[in-house]
């Protein structure tokens, strides 16, 4: 995204387009990346409930992929995931490895 110059800004840093935070991709903060292991997933949607940033996609009641544009790698989903027979469906991996 091309950054604006100072003449183009709204006075007083006022945001006039509601919901425009979706344009600011914050996923680049991530140091750890969640990995979904589909065969261990029971689709309980705990990860969806606990995710603080709506980064778990859900379609037709089934868990989908992560939204890596906004996932900050906090690891809450991996912590809460009950998995299947003791095997986690979400594990955290270090970024860049």
């Amino acid at each position, binding site marked *: 995204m091309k950054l*604006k110059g*100072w003449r183009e*800004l*709204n*006075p*007083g*840093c*006022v945001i*006039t387009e*509601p919901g425009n935070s979706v344009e600011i991709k914050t996923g680049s903060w991530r140091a750890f990346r969640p990995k979904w292991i589909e065969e261990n997933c029971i689709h309980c949607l705990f990860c969806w409930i606990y995710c603080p940033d709506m980064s778990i996609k859900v379609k037709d009641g089934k868990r989908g992929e992560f939204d890596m544009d906004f996932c900050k790698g906090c690891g809450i989903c991996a912590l809460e995931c009950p998995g299947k027979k003791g095997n986690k469906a979400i594990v955290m991996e270090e970024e860049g490895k």
Partner: protein
Amino acid sequence: MGKVVAVTGNEAVAEALRQVNPDVCAAYPITPQTDLMQRFTSFASNGKVKTEVILVESEHSAMSACVGAAAAGGRVVTATSSQGLLLMLEIVFIASGMRLPIVMPIVNRAVSAPINIHGDHSDAMAARDAGWIQLWSENAQEAYDNAIQAFRIAEHLDIRLPAMVCLDGFIISHSIERIEYLDDKTVSDFVGDFKTVNPLLDTDHPVSYGPLILTDYYMEYRKAHDEVMSRVSKVVLEVAEDFHKVSGRRYGLFEAYRLEDAEIALVVLNSAAGTSKDVIDAFRDKGIKVGLLKPRLMRPFPYNEIGEALKHLKAVCVLDRADAFGGSLGPLCIDIMSALYQYKERPIVMNKIYGLGGRDFMPSQAEYALNDLLETVKTGKVKTFKEYIGVRE
């Protein structure tokens, strides 16, 4: 037509606020501002204004409520002094950063410690770089006139910045003077209807105030603030011109008193300028070419205009009713020196600190400063660039 009255500075400013009739006022009492807001809130409780008065538990909350009300889309006023200004200082910066045109009379008072309730300029000087406009007032008339003009300046669509109107605690706030009030309709026509810009209460056009701005945009917002400050002088002069039409009283960015053909001059803010002018007259009667410059627009400081007005002088003494500890010189002197630095040939500048904590500024002190200037011009030597006057050794 207006009427001639005998009132205190606080009473005059409260009357200006009544005539402007703002939407919201959030304030907390502090000497010597208390009497101003007591008068204004009694207007509100007696139905003389439509203002929603919010009584808060501190100045920090007062300015916070003002920020909320101004962002919501209201014409907002508050007033404070000394510790109150310092307590709200965090939110003072937020009000200017959000470009909210709040008007705030500052009844200048010394700051603690040691605790002192009397008039000096340490409070407003501590907030001079907070991104607000500052208008300073010599007497009750100027405080009244500046308060009315402050709304027009702050709310101007090219500006949208908050504004302080400074008047000296007790010396002006509590002394009775003859002043001329404008009539109510003249004032309300002069300030006009409040125009909102991105009001929070316009739910058809939802907006957010106060987002996090990090390394990618913070400097651009600061540059934009610097730019808007550079437009203030022009608007101050336009508003002054309009004010002259309704009041017959002329205002500029500063007052130049017998300055044009002067060889030496005093630079002084607020009430001490009145005393100094009498002494200037006495020196003029003796044939000595002395003058005075009294800044009115202190922020943004009109460096070029003041520099042009002073550059022809041989020597200038800046009288400061505050010290800028560690900066070596008083705050006004720092600005005057900066204004003159651009000229290859410039007057000698010296600084005298007077009247701290409300100590009387006497004619003898102005005489002392002028005689020091005369001696400096004669010998070409400066005895001392900065000294405290009216202080016991």
